[in-house]
């Protein structure tokens, strides 16, 4: 695929959140259940709180209050993780697995690759941007386990992309993730939770919002891409 096609496909047509359904609970939303603290986090006097996202894996609850996590940090760390993972996966696949014929071990190898990279990035982030990285909610390993990066890696290795294509795919997917995450966070802030039927509050509403957004994104399909780039 051409570079423009890759960017468009991974960011919009096959958006990681809306099309592949990866990373949803963390994408601009609180965790599985709304707590009173979630509403507190909507307080506009909290500066720079773009979302009340918990970047925890769906089940990794700590019972702690939902902290305000800037959407740009979530998006940036996801993008970096995905890009590096995609390239790393290509390396491992091309130089280790394929020549040795161990493609059957692809799954465990990729899982550990992504987890390892996530840990490494976490350590790096602690050195470089300690104020952000030390928040437990945004620990990068959790993002790794959140399977977005792993899902992307599986897609790129199966499609047998080259190293630069993988890198671009990872970056585009991260951008798409950030876009959706920011949009969902902004929508969530606008909701009047008191009027929503109780059974629907929190997680169900988040899923339904994502579903409606996914329908909107159906406008970006492959035929559109083909005509846009071919013209």
């Amino acid at each position, binding site marked *: 695929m051409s570079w423009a096609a890759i960017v468009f496909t991974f960011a919009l047509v096959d958006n990681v959140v809306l099309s*592949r359904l990866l990373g949803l609970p963390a994408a601009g939303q609180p965790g599985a259940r709304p707590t009173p603290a979630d509403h507190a986090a909507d307080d506009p006097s909290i500066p720079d709180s773009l979302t009340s996202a918990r970047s925890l894996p769906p089940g990794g609850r700590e019972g702690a209050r939902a902290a305000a996590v800037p959407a740009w940090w979530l998006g940036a760390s996801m993008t970096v993780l995905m890009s590096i993972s995609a390239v790393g996966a290509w390396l491992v696949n091309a130089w280790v697995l394929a020549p040795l014929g161990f493609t059957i071990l692809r799954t465990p190898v990729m899982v550990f690759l992504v987890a390892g990279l996530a840990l490494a990035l976490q350590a790096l982030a602690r050195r470089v941007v300690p104020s952000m990285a030390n928040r437990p909610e945004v620990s990068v390993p959790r993002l790794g386990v959140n399977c977005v990066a792993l899902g992307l890696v599986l897609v790129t290795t199966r499609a047998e992309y080259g190293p630069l294509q993988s890198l671009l795919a990872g970056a585009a997917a991260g951008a798409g993730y950030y876009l959706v995450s920011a949009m969902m966070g902004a929508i969530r802030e606008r909701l009047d939770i008191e009027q929503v039927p109780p059974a629907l509050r929190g997680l169900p509403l988040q*899923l339904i919002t994502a579903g409606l957004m996914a329908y909107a994104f159906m406008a970006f399909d492959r035929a559109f891409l083909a005509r846009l780039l071919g013209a």
Partner: protein
Amino acid sequence: MTDAGSGPIRPAAMREAPAVLLLLGFLPSVVVAVRVVDALWMAAGVLLVSIGSAVARSLLDWSSGSPGASTVGQTARWLRALVVSSLLTAAFEAALLAVAPAASAALGIYAPLVAVNLLAVGTDAASPRPLRAALGALHKGAWYAAGLVVVAFAREVLGAGTITLFPAGGFGGTIVVSALLDQPVRALGLAGGGLLCMGYLAAAVRAVSARKTGRST
């Protein structure tokens, strides 16, 4: 990272039903739940890997002589859980490719994702007795299977007008719902449809369990 292996801590304030929690953990696999048969294969994989993981971990705990988290560090537990589940997932993938290649193609990247989804859901501290661990995992897996099949059933019947099951004997595997086959509600078969179904299912389950106050989930 620290408690990924030690199980979920649930605030008493609100509890989700097990089906909802599990479905959330395996949310990506809803993409696959467009045909009943694919949902069944996915559920089979989850059951296999989760039961196997539970048994393996409890055996490892038993063999290392410790009943719980005391001697083994949290990071080590997490890594160990990762190893076990990813190896089991690889085994499942290989088996599926051999037995039902069409299903393997349909599941795509979502079969390998079972490995990490299992951890994401929050693996309970495995009981020291393998049998109990296996039963616990079976119980969770059954809830997951039920939820996924319900979603797949709704999406296939309304979205495609068919019900696809395993072919057996003379039965080709596809039941046709003739009233809907002509002009089904195709939007339900899309990713957005899966999310909508999941959202309403979660709300329904929550409403039902809220009505049964005092029942432990």
